Every structure is written in structure tokens, then in C-alpha cells.
């Protein structure tokens, strides 16, 4: 399988899904993994909020519109989740939803970054008198 080279973190998941382990053990182990991530995730979340707070306060008010457009484009990073949903070869409700989410997020990514660029290209300094 081509994926095998990326075993790493995903190995426990794969092993846990083997029928050898009892369902209870699987659940317990997965539960532990989930709550572990919650603390990590929360750490990341809180720190990112602080970074966001300080970075955004430094944005000049003249560029608040581009800020909205670019944050909009960036929040479409949710496409990462959509790609996973749209991936399976077997098409069902979940892959269709994934596909739709990929379309929507792509509209945003392309639209958001391009419109930001268009805006930023218009901002010019006063020309020095020759």
C-alpha cells in the first residue's frame, strides 16, 4: 500500500482497528488519544488566539478590507477536512458532501486571495515630484 510509508502516528489507529483487540479496548485507547489531543488542541488554540490578537491589532486601519478578504481566504483551510471526506473511491453521501465542501472552499481560496491581491495592488504611495 502506498500509504504504508507514512505509518507514524496513524499506526495505533490501524492496529486498533484490527479485530484482534476487543471493542472495549479499542474504544478506551481511542478515547485516551482523543482527550490527549483535546489538551494539545486547546494549547494550540489559546496560543493562536494570543498571536492573532497581537498581530491583528497591528494591522493598519487602511487595510482592514484586505484583512477581511484574506482572513476569509485563509479560513477556507477547512478544505483540509473536505479533502479527506471527498477522497474515498466509493461514492456515498459523505463523499458528495466532501466534494461540495471542496468546491465551496476552493471558490473562497481562489476568490479570497485574488481579490485581496487586487485590492493591495491599488494601494500606492504619493509619486515623488520629478
Amino acid at each position: 500500500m502506498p500509504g504504508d510509508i507514512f505509518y507514524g502516528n496513524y499506526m495505533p489507529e490501524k492496529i486498533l482497528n484490527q479485530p484482534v483487540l476487543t471493542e472495549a479496548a479499542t474504544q478506551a485507547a481511542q478515547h485516551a488519544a482523543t482527550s490527549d489531543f483535546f489538551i494539545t488542541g486547546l494549547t494550540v488554540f489559546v496560543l493562536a488566539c494570543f498571536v492573532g490578537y497581537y498581530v491583528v491589532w497591528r494591522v493598519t486601519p487602511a487595510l482592514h478590507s484586505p484583512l477581511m478578504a484574506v482572513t476569509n481566504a485563509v479560513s477556507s483551510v477547512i478544505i483540509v477536512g473536505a479533502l479527506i471526506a471527498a477522497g474515498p473511491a466509493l461514492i456515498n453521501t459523505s463523499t458528495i458532501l466532501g466534494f461540495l465542501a471542496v468546491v465551496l472552499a476552493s471558490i473562497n481560496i481562489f476568490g479570497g486571495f485574488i481579490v485581496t491581491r487586487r485590492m493591495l495592488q491599488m494601494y500606492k504611495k504619493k509619486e515623488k515630484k520629478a
Partner: protein
Amino acid sequence: MTALLSFAYLVSGICFIMALRGLSSPETAKSGNMYGMFGMALAIVTTLFLLPNIIPQISYNLIIAGVVIGGAIGTFIAYRIQMTALPQLVAAFHSLVGLAAVFVAIAAYLSPEAYGIGVAGNIHGGSLVEMGLGLAIGAITFTGSIIAFGKLQGLISGKPVTFPMQHPLNALLGISIVGLIVMLVVQQDVSIVMALTVVSLLLGILLIIPIGGADMPVVISMLNSYSGWAACGIGFTLQNPLLIITGALVGASGAILSYIMCKGMNRSIFNVILGGFGAEAGGASAGGSAVDRPVKSGSAEDAAFILKNASSVIIVPGYGMAVAQAQHALREMCDLLKKEGVSVRYAIHPVAGRMPGHMNVLLAEANVPYDEVFELDEINRDFGMSDVAFVIGANDVTNPAAKTDPKSPIFGMPILDVEKAKTVLFIKRSMASGYAGVENELFYRANTMMLFGDAKKMCELIVKSIGGGH
């Protein structure tokens, strides 16, 4: 290898931070945007590398089709959109992020194995809560942004829509969302997911419908923030740090912008969210306004004469300038004045326009150099030393009642002190009061001259009179 992929996610997170960091000055903003694009491309490529690892039988058809279709639509819209329609565009884009979050959350519920959060029918409780929150916020963002789009585009009345029992109803919906998420944890049933989606969609509509058109800067910033929190919720569900980082950045950005906008109107965020502003006030002052006060009105020639003989002019643009698309004519007028040796600067109120920074973009579009454009606190003291304040499409943000009349609904709002200039020129279509429904006493002052007409036509006429018509 997985470590490498996680590292790639970290790099793209940093790129997003750099993209926002770049916006601290127009000079660094463009390279910041490049960082953003690179970060996004890296995130997508990384995920594509990761996919074969998570999905046993993979097909790239839907993914490629989705990116191509979405990319084409996005590119087309972004190149075609007019800068005056920017607020609508941003609102529409927010709605897409919201809907994408809803789809991803439901997809994760239907096939949790792919996301490593359990098996169908037996998803971990914590993941369900995160998923539920992401779904609810996404749905609220979706319908809320659609309503905001409708109001900005003029498809729905910009007036606040209020009805009895509005707030209790919203509170009830909010409580049901919490209740449904709890139910979802207890009993995993697809019907609860559907109910949660429907209730959240409804709440999104009801939250935005009572908010009036000129409060849209706050609404758009708020929805911007929501779309970030929705991404965060999905990030926790998918256990993806990049989504959490990005969601938090966007959430913080939207929240700060909402705060700045609220401060610009001296209103609390709750006051804005609860809505209805301008509805009652408008009725009251329409009845009690003193009509038939003498107003000095002038022609384009008069204005041209005053402007030409001034030594310093401050332009105060507002939403009316955007509506009339007057920015290009205005810039032409200012170029002529500069040729005559007049110093011309622009003063921008934080809440001018329909989104944060709206006026700055429009002026930039009309080739006004950004170092001639100043924020309220930078320029407000200079009005006293200026010969002319030229108000174009703004009204409430210049109303001295905000400082003098404690009974006024806009009392306490920071205003541009245009009345301190020697002469105030006011371009307006009619004597109608502004959005807040308050009469502007400035119209009746001795040093004010009203220029009645369309902002764009008036600027063009002034250009002709100054001598640009030849």
C-alpha cells in the same frame, strides 16, 4: 514522514500569521499575501500526501473536479467584482466558509473512521461536541452571511426587521442548539444532526435580520469571526492543529474588527447584535424635527470658487460616495485642486462605508495615494486649521449632536470635527436625515453650504468649473 507532514502544517500556519502580519503596512502587504497563498498551497499538498494513509481506497476524481470547478468560479468572481461591491462579496464568501464547515461536519459524522474519531454510531463524546459546535457555528455563519449579503446587495430591505418576542425566540433557539448537542452525545442519531443544522440555520437568519444596513461593518466583522470559530470547531473534531491555528487567527481578527467598529459608533456589541437601531429613532425625529429652518445651498460653481481659493481642504467620504461611485470624479477634482496649489487630504471615520476599511479601498481604487488618507485620530485636530471640509456621502459621522446632545441616539460617538473648518461643503441628495435618523444640525450652520445633487455629478460639475473641462 508523518512528522514531516505535521511540520508542513506548522509551516503553513506560520505563513498565515505572516499574511496577517504583512498587513501592518501597505508596503509589506503584498508579500504577506504571497505567504498566505503559499501556506494554503502547502496545506493542500500536505493533505493530499496524507490521504492514501487514511483512506484505504482513494480516488482523486472528486477532489480534482472540486478544486477546478471552485477555483474557476472563485477566480472569475474575484476578477470581475467591482470594488464598490466588495462588502457583498465578502459576505458571500463568508457564507461559503460556513456552508463548507457544515458539510465537513456532517461528512465527519457519517464516516468518522476516515477522521479517526470512532466508528459510525459510536463516535467519541468529545468529538461529537466539537463537531456539533463546528456545525452550529458554520450553519449560523452561512445563513447569517446570506442575509447580510441580501441587505448589502439591496435584495432585502436594509432597514432593521423587528417583531415581538424576537429576543426570547433567539434565546430559545440558542438553548435548543446546546440541548441538541447534548442529545447528540447521548444518542447518536442522524436526525439530531439534521435538527441541529436546521435550528442553527434558522438562528443565523434571525440573528442578522434585525440589524440595520449601516451596522453592516459590525455584522460582517462578526460573521468573519464566526467563520473562524467554525473552522476551529472542525479543527478540534479532525484533530488538526493547522485548522485550529487558522480558525483562532480568523476568529480573533473578526472579533477585533467588530470591537473597533462598535467603538467607532460608541455602542456595545450587544446593542448592535440586538438590533433595531435607527428604526424607532427615525420615527421620533421625523415627527419632531423642526422644518423650515434656513439652509444655505450653493451651486457647483460656488463650490469650485471656494475650493480653488482655499489653501487646505479635507475630504470626508462616506457610504454615499460608494453608492454614487463618485470616487473617480472626486479624485479628478482633487488633482485639479492640487495643481492649483491647494493641500488636499482625506479623513476616514472608522465606520464609514459598509465594511471596515471600505473607504480606503475605494480611494485606492481611484488612485488616491494612501499617504494622503488619514484616520480619525490622526487628522481630527487639523479641521480647525483647514479652510474647507468637503463632506461627500457622509452624515452621522460629522454630526456635532454626538458631542452636545446627550439625548441623541448617537451621543458619545466619536465624530469628525468638520464644523471647525472655515467652510463646510456638504454634498447630499436631499435634506433627509442619516441612517441613525438624527437631524444634522450642521446643515443649518452659517459656515455650511449644501450642495444638493448626486455626488458623482456634483464632483464632475465642480471639475468643469475649476477648469478641467476645457
